[in-house]
């Protein structure tokens, strides 16, 4: 994958690009793309992959003009437009799945294939989604990974919170990334998508880690009820970060859209 920059109306956008085949736009979750680069490499063996960063993620410029769901949705359409893509497969993980759903709902005739991996965007009082904004770094793996212990090792690799320099860099990254994500996820990751899901015309696959402890699999059924003809693919032995934990299974599920 190659990291490139494209200019959009509001802000330069950083994106990864690689592979060949049918174009596929992958939208990352609130954690960013770092953990999914391996997954994207594999995905690029089947598709021409474009993975833009939400402004503020990685080394990309922040954009204070993106404030609400409509801003995020239209901005991401601007990115697709600038990439010169027509009807790419839209895929998104968690927050990225929420944005992809909104894009497909707002412009149903422009999206014919939609892959939603544990998307955010719905809320059921009887199944509250844990508050990632109040979690300490050591608490995250338990919610994100199927194997929390292995996840903790991956997430803490190279992290030394007692080193002030590291701590400051960590806080800056958190403020930039989760600060941006908070615009559509804080305090409740729901911005009215439920009332718009019916507009989606795309052939849709809902991909969910069976052991997802952040957005529990019961939400797969809720999305399925809202999107006509959507298919659910459950991934065994995977948590919320299924693309990281079971890349082949997730890619196989996306490939069903072909």
């Amino acid at each position, binding site marked *: 994958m190659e990291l490139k920059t494209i200019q959009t109306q509001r802000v330069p956008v950083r994106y990864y690009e690689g592979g060949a085949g049918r174009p596929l736009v992958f939208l990352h979750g609130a954690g960013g793309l770092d953990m999914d680069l391996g997954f994207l490499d594999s995905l690029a063996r089947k598709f021409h992959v474009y993975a833009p960063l939400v402004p503020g993620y990685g080394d990309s410029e*922040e954009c*204070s003009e993106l*404030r609400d769901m409509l801003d995020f949705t239209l901005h991401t359409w601007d990115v697709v437009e600038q990439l010169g893509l027509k009807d790419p497969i839209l895929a998104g993980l968690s927050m990225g799945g929420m944005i992809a759903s909104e894009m497909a709902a707002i412009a149903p005739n422009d999206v014919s294939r939609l892959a939603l991996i544990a998307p955010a965007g719905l809320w059921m009082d009887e199944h509250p989604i844990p508050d990632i*904004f*109040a*979690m*300490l770094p050591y*608490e995250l793996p338990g919610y994100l990974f199927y194997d929390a212990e292995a996840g903790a090792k991956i997430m803490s690799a190279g992290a030394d919170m007692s080193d*002030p320099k590291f701590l*400051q860099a960590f*806080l*800056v990254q*958190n*403020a*930039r*990334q*989760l*600060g*941006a994500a*908070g*615009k559509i996820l*804080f*305090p*409740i990751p729901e911005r009215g998508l439920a009332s718009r899901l019916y507009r989606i015309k795309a052939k849709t696959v809902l991909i969910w880690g069976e052991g997802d402890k952040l957005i529990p699999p019961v939400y797969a059924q809720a999305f399925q009820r809202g999107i006509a003809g959507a298919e659910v693919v459950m991934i065994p032995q995977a948590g919320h970060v299924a693309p990281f934990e079971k890349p082949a299974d997730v890619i196989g599920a996306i490939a069903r859209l072909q």
Partner: protein
Amino acid sequence: MRFTWFNLMPWPYLPDDFREKNRSVWVDIDSNLFDPVKSHQVYNNYLDLLEYAAKLGFDGIGVNEHHQNAYGLMPSPNLIAASLARRTDDVALVVLGASIALYNPPLRVAEEFAMLDCISGGRLVAGFPVGTSMDTNYCYGTIPGLTREKYQEAHVLIKRAWAEREPFAFNGRYTKLRYVNAWPRPIQQPHPPIHIPGGGSIETFDFCIDNTYSYSYLSFGGYIRGQALMQGYWDRVAERNAPDTSPYRAGFAQTICVGETDAEAERLYAKHVSYFYNRCLHVYPGFADAPGYRTIKTIQKGILSQYAPHTMFQEFPWKELVDNGSVIAGSPETVTHRMEDLIKKLRVGNIFCLMQIGDMPRDKCMHSTRLFAEKVMPKLRKMFPDYAPEYVNDGRFWCKPLAVRASPGALPVESDPVGADR
């Protein structure tokens, strides 16, 4: 010097094993720990103490806003201030303050502050905090990354509502109003003095300097630890070419306990100080700083929240708290000496005296308060005498009450209702 007796209104019945059994004193604190019947006495006791401080000659009595918080029982500081307005006479009512970004529309704050100023005869000192992340983001659901923008817009609306004399349309991003027409408006013109409590954001420093507002650092960490932050503020005052360096551009909150002797202070107050520092400040670090609440610039300056994780799980003994300046405690002489040190080192004209500490009972609080008022305060009055005379007790940062004010409760016996029309 201006001394404000400040009451956070802590809940005094947190159990001994509070820290072990609860993750946070704030946001998701166990609702069962609050007892409404007991709170009746607690509130009235705290109001009595504020009124007592006014009688002893403090310049101001102070209240502030917290939500879902066992060390601050005032979700609505304006309600408390309204009650104090009627029961006090010449003391400033320092509301530090109402979190202007949390009200919809924020015009509500302009109205309530105007009411307080009118009822009290121009005794309001108005605070406009951004609010802590715990209150603003976690309790009241404001999106962290938009909090400052929302705050700025609320500030513009309130200032315009107080200043303009014709109804106007306000087309904000967060508030849209067709007819802004503040009724009532404050007595103090162009507006009551404004204090901004802050926790070290560069943007808040600049906001105060540019608008001639007083910057208040409401820390519990004491003056020695607060020095770096206040120096940062004064450096910024110089950098931005403020027209003067009046000490009233700054305020500082300090926990203070006065006894007849140093030993008495420890004997009387140590357990209540421990209650506050070891139970009331037990805040879950996950609530300390929602990502996006602080600006990148502020994080890069390295001024981290006083609620940052490294301070959370220590046990603070009396000696350490006194030595490191978190608490200024001792005989009147000791306290005077340390207060002089504080006032000089931080260059602050406004002192917010935190004297109702944790579960301190009324008699002890009165004792400490009286000793401070009688034996410490008079000796500190003349600080900054060498400062430019026009800024001694700088009026830009303090209230200007009406010369002639109403006497509450002074109705005559009803005698001649018909004659009233003549």
